[in-house]
């Protein structure tokens, strides 16, 4: 297998063929923020938080899907990128009803972590205050669409790992929503196995365990990589990294 040598932020790194820029960056502890990306699931490339600059191109590239080529020069944290990432989180904050103080995942939320990471101290866009629905018909779980960032991790984990494909997206643009089956109450969905994977991988408080009170709900998205590895490579032991 050939090895590719390329530069990230002035330092040289090597990548195996097929590695993405994000994988190499993660392996070498270079921080690139992500939201829709989750190890173990297919890449979606939609949150645009991981965009990086590549020398010689005026465009920005998502690190999660872009593969390095020999002697490529990548920049991951220029002022422009920082500004854009901050703005993307700002847009998300304005889009949903994200009131951390009263949210089940307060303190364990990836959106909240991102807001700290990009130093989002205020939002310049008017809040849209959507009136989306909350579905508590499932016996164990709840979906509050007002907290959803449409990363589709739940859609992908349900389709790719649990193979049930309960979730998908309805609507278009700002009206997009995650729906169960053909838009029926989650609790009545005949395809849902109640495995709870979607709840574990959801980065925000949109999917949560029934009965969780403010700040109580802890997510556990790392286990998906363990499941996928166990299936594909027959590695049955969880590493500390995956439990992070």
């Amino acid at each position, binding site marked *: 297998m050939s090895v590719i040598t390329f530069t990230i932020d002035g330092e040289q790194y090597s990548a195996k063929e097929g590695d993405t820029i994000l994988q190499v960056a993660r392996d070498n502890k270079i921080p690139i923020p992500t939201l829709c990306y989750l190890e173990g699931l297919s*890449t979606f490339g939609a949150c*645009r938080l991981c965009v990086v600059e590549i020398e010689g191109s005026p465009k920005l590239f998502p690190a999660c899907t872009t593969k390095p080529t020999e002697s490529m020069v990548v920049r991951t944290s220029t002022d422009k990128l920082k500004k*854009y990432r901050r703005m993307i989180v700002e847009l998300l904050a304005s889009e949903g009803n994200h009131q951390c103080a009263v949210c089940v995942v307060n303190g364990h939320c990836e959106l909240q972590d991102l807001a700290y990471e990009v130093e989002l101290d*205020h939002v310049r866009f008017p809040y849209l205050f959507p009136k989306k629905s909350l579905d508590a018909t499932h016996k164990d779980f709840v979906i509050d669409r007002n907290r959803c960032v449409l990363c589709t991790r739940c859609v992908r984990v349900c389709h790719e790992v649990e193979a049930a494909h309960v979730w998908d997206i309805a609507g278009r643009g*700002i009206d997009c929503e995650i729906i169960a089956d053909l838009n029926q109450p989650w609790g009545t969905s005949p395809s849902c196995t109640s495995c709870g994977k979607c709840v574990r991988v959801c980065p925000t408080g949109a999917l949560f365990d029934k009965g969780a009170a403010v700040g109580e709900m802890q997510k556990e998205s790392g286990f998906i990589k363990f499941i996928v590895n166990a299936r594909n490579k027959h590695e049955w032991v969880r590493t500390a990294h995956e439990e992070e």
Partner: protein
Amino acid sequence: MTVEDLRELAEKEQARQAEYEHRILYCSSAGCVSSGCDAVKNELKKAIGELDLSKKCEMIGTGCLGLCGEGPLVFVSSGPTLYQHVDAAAARRIVEEHIGQGKKVKENEIDLNDPFFASQKKIVLENMGKINAESIEEYIAADGYEALAKALTEMIPEEVISEIRKAGLRGRGGAGYPTGLKWDIVRKGVADQKYVVCNADEGDPGAFMDRSVLEGDPHRVLEGMAIAGYAVGANQGFIYVRAEYPLAIDRLKTAIKQAERLGLLGNGIFESHFNFRIDIRIGAGAFVCGEETALLRSVMGRRGRPKVRPPYPSEKGLWDKPTVINNVETYANVAPILRNGSGWFAAIGTQKSPGTKVFAIAGNVKRPGLIEVPMGIALRKIIFDIGGGTPEGTKFKAAQAGGPSGGCIPTEHLDILVDYESLQTVGAMMGSGGMIVIDDTSNMVEVAKYFSEFCMDESCGKCIPCRVGTKHIYMMLDKIVKGEATENDFDLLKELCVMVKETSLCGLGQSAPNGVISTVRFFKDEYLSKLKKSAEGNTHLNESSSVPVVKEA
């Protein structure tokens, strides 16, 4: 069917047409249908019957005659004469006087030496007003399927691609990617199955080029696709047409059936080993499905959402197989290139953008319609010579080229040459060929708001910058139009536009802010005049922002 059979068919049809002294070609495209060409058709038929002239003339429904604003249009081959604003009474007079007595109906005649016609160069639209849109025989009589025959019997696939490359044909869907290069990548791809796809999901407001080609000359597109199939080694083609084009879909269905019946599509075409079939896929009304990766997903029956490129469709397209995807107009150029040679095509237009481009002119212009001009023509010529300029009493302000993704070109850039590179220097783009003329009765902020509303409605919602960004762009423009916005809002709008343009996933989001960016660039005063003076003592924070969160030390 052999090549000899094809030529025999062509001669037979030419002889049949020669029997008539006059051919009356009424425009049967959607534009003239809506201005009442059915009544004209019925009256023509009735009059011909009553005056017993059916041996002297035949009546044919043809493709778009161009001057859509003056429809219904009727063309009489003897003369030749083009009649405008034809109603039932005029139709009867055309039959009685022109056909019956050889006298032209002066009241409805259009001067064919007018710059509207003289400045045009027709390749894609060459059969409009010449052939019956629903007759394969008439297409064959006009050298139709001759190029496919030549490719299959005289050329190897590499030679076909080399001809297209030498001709310098670039994608007419807007981006201008070299067609030959795209085909070459697909040809070199190793796979058990390859596909050819035609993008007929034309959705830009005011654009109707592809619709007119499909309605007026569907076989030209089928022939181009079959040649592409032979060149890249594909045996299956798909045409993705939007459901809003029912007439185009009907004509395509008829055309495919006719071609299959004659063995011009199907197995062993021209007794070669080449098999090719074409199926139609009908869109469900999403503009974003004009984006190639979303279109391919829609063809496969999935949700029409773009995905990250690479891999490009030429490597992994339909069902992950190498797929050629081109626009209607691109395929329509293929047959003439093979028929007349790459040198002929390369000599038309400019060196970097050879050939012609079809434009649909609409908006505040005297003569809206469908035109085809050589690349590199001055914009001024298109708008004033061909389009006739803006209506009396108004002044030209801007031309909006490239649909909602395009930009506005102001008066000072009227002498710009229309080709891929030049248009980009002023922040517009070739796009698929929609051109909306705007006069001084329109406010540019409202124009920008209109296009941004379109983009917001059509955003698929996959990536955050486009989904939420287009919403905020629209809301801010609305605020400016209402006179409620401050300078801070305006600055934030500009910042947001650049971010959405640079970070969005697909072409829709990347170009959605273009309308705002270009109007801000050329018509900044119109924005500034609508802004509120910022209130005294305003902090650095935007008025619309919420209570700021105190940052932790």
